[in-house]
C-alpha cells in the first residue's frame, strides 16, 4: 500500500515536471508562425472623412444626408502567396466586420508560416458553398442576422440608418446573392509589390486596408429613389460591386 502511494506520488510529480517543461518550451523564441492582422479602416468618400455609426454624413455624389446605424459585411477566404509561388490558405476564414462591435474591423489570422509574402487574396462576401451547406457557426451563424430566412443565402453587406432624403426617413440595404448573374461574391487580390509582407515568428504583421462605404452609391440612385433593398438582383449586384471595388490595400506595418 505504501509502495502504491509512493509510486502514485512519483507519477504525479513526473506529470507536473513534464508539464513544467512544456511551458518552458512554449516560451522559447523558435516559433515558425506569426499572425497577420487585416485592419479595415473605414473612410467616407474621396476626402477620406471619418466614418462612424450614428454620425451624420453627406454623400459626395447623391448629396443625401445619411446617418448609419448598422454597417456590417463579410470578408472571407484569406490567402497569402510566398515569393516561391506557394500559398498559405487560412482555414475556416470567415470574418464579419460589424461597426457596432469594437475590434471586428481587425481580422486576425494566426498560424501564418514565417516568411516573405508577395501577394494576398481575399473574398468579399461568403462563397457560394457556405450559402448552401446548412447551419454554420461563428461569423456565419444565422444568429448574426446576416442570413435571409425566407430566401436562403448570406446578407453580405448590411447598411441601415436614417436619412431625411428617404421617403420613409430611413434606409436599409441588405446586399447578397451567390448564384448566376446575381452573384455578388468578389475575389480580390493585392500585390504588395516591392513592399512584401514579412511574417516573423511570434509577431503580428499588419496589413492596412481602406474601405469606403460611400462607394455603395457610386453608381446608384439617391435614397429619395431607392431607400430599401432586401433581395439579390441587379441593384444589389451594382451596389456590392461598387463597394467592393473601392476596398483597397493601403500599407503594411511589421
Amino acid at each position: 500500500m505504501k509502495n502504491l502511494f509512493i509510486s502514485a506520488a512519483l507519477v504525479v510529480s513526473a506529470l507536473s515536471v513534464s508539464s513544467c517543461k512544456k511551458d518552458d518550451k512554449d516560451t522559447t523564441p523558435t516559433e515558425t508562425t506569426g499572425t497577420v492582422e487585416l485592419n479595415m479602416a473605414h473612410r467616407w468618400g474621396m476626402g477620406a472623412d471619418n466614418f462612424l455609426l450614428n454620425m451624420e454624413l453627406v454623400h459626395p455624389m447623391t448629396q443625401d444626408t445619411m446617418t448609419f446605424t448598422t454597417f456590417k459585411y463579410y470578408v472571407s477566404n484569406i490567402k497569402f502567396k510566398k515569393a516561391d509561388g506557394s500559398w498559405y490558405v487560412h482555414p475556416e476564414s470567415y470574418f464579419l466586420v460589424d461597426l457596432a462591435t469594437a475590434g471586428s474591423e481587425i481580422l486576425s489570422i494566426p498560424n501564418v508560416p514565417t516568411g516573405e509574402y508577395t501577394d494576398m487574396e481575399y473574398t468579399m462576401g461568403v462563397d457560394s458553398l457556405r450559402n448552401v451547406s446548412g447551419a454554420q457557426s461563428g461569423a456565419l451563424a444565422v444568429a448574426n442576422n446576416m442570413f435571409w430566412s425566407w430566401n436562403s443565402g448570406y446578407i453580405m453587406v448590411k447598411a441601415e440608418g436614417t436619412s431625411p432624403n428617404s421617403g420613409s426617413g430611413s434606409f436599409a440595404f441588405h446586399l447578397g446573392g451567390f448564384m448566376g448573374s446575381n452573384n455578388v461574391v468578389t475575389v480580390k487580390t493585392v500585390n504588395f509589390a516591392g513592399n512584401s509582407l514579412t511574417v516573423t515568428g511570434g509577431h503580428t504583421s499588419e496589413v492596412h486596408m481602406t474601405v469606403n462605404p460611400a462607394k455603395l452609391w457610386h453608381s446608384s440612385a439617391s435614397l429619395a429613389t431607392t431607400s430599401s433593398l432586401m433581395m439579390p438582383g441587379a441593384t444589389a449586384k451594382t451596389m456590392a460591386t461598387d463597394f467592393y471595388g473601392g476596398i483597397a490595400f493601403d500599407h503594411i506595418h511589421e
Partner: protein
Amino acid sequence: MVVSLLITSTNNNHSPLFDRGDFFQNMRTILFIVAISAFLFSCKKAEIENYKEWGFEKPSHFPEPHYKFENNTQTYDRFDLGRELFYDPILSLDSTISCAKCHAQTHGFADHNVNFSLGVNNTVGKRNSPALSNLAWYPNFMWDGGINHIETFSFAPITNPLEMHETMTNVVAKLNASAHYKEKFKKAYGSETVTDQKLLKALAQFMAMMISAESKYDNYVLGKTTFTSAEENGLQLFKTHCASCHTEPLTSSFGFANNGLDSDFTNDLGRGLVTQDPNDNGKFRIPSLRNVALTYPYMHDGRFFTLNQVLDHYSNGIVQSSTLATSLGTGFNFTTQEKQDLITFLNTLTDQNYLANPFLSEKKK
C-alpha cells in the same frame, strides 16, 4: 418493478415452495415470470435498439435522399434533442407556439382545419402550414422553395413575426438558461453550450427522420398487398393525370407549378418571389400527397377543405394564365366515378404507422 410485484403475489399464492406438486406449479410460475420479464425487458430495450437499427434507412422503393446528414452525424441523442425542441414552445417569443402547434402528427404534420395558422399574438400566417414527411428528400423547402437546406429551415418559422416571432439569439439564451437543455445539448453535441448551429442541426435530425413509407400504397408498390378494383382504377387515373407532377413514389417531383388557381398573382407571387423570374409567378411547390386525406385544407392558401373540392378544381376549375402548367390544359373533366376512384386511391396514401409513430410523437415527461 412490475416483475417484483408479480413475484410477491405468486409467493403469496404458492407457499410452501418445495412441495413436489407445487414445484412444477412454481416452475411454471418462474418460467412465466422469466417470460414476462424478458418481454418487458425486450420492450424497453426494443425502443432504443429498434431505433438504432432504424436510424435513417432509405425505404427500398424510395430514391436516394437529398440530405445525408453531412456534418451532422446521426445519433439518438441529437434526434431526441430535436424531437423535444420540435414540441417545445420555448422556440417562440412568448413560449406559446411550438413547431408541433401547426404541424400535428395526427394530420400528417399539417395544421388541420385552418387555411392559415396563427402565430404569436394570434397573428395570421400568409400560407397554409404544409404537411411534413420525407423531408430528407426535399432539395429545398417552403411553398416557394426559398430555403435551400433542411438545417437552415427552422430559422424561418422561429424568426418570422407571423409565426414564432423570436430571435435566434433569444432562443439560444433561453436554452442556455435551462439546466435540462444544457444537459441534453451536452449529450448530443459534447458541450453544454447551446448555439444556434446545434439547435438547427438537432431539429434537422428530427425532421429528416420523418419518414412516411408504410401506407397501403407503399405495401402495394412493394408487392405486399393488393388494391381493390376502385383503388387500382384510381391509381391508373393518378398515373395518367397526376403523376407527372406528383411523381411516385414520393408523390412529388419537388418542383413548382401554377395549378390554375388564379390569374392574378399580385397577392402572392409564389416561386417568382424567390427567383424574381416573372415566368415563375403563381407557381408553388408541388406538394407530396402522402397522408393527403388528413392534411386538409389544401393548396398554398388552404382554399379547399375537401379532396372533392380539389378534384372539382382539376376537373373543371382550371383558371388560365401565362404560367399555367401546360399539363393541366383546361382541366380533366373527371366523371363522378373517376373522382370517387381517385379519392379511394388517395386514401391508400394514409400511413397509419407514420401518424402513430411513437418516435415522432411528443415525449411524455
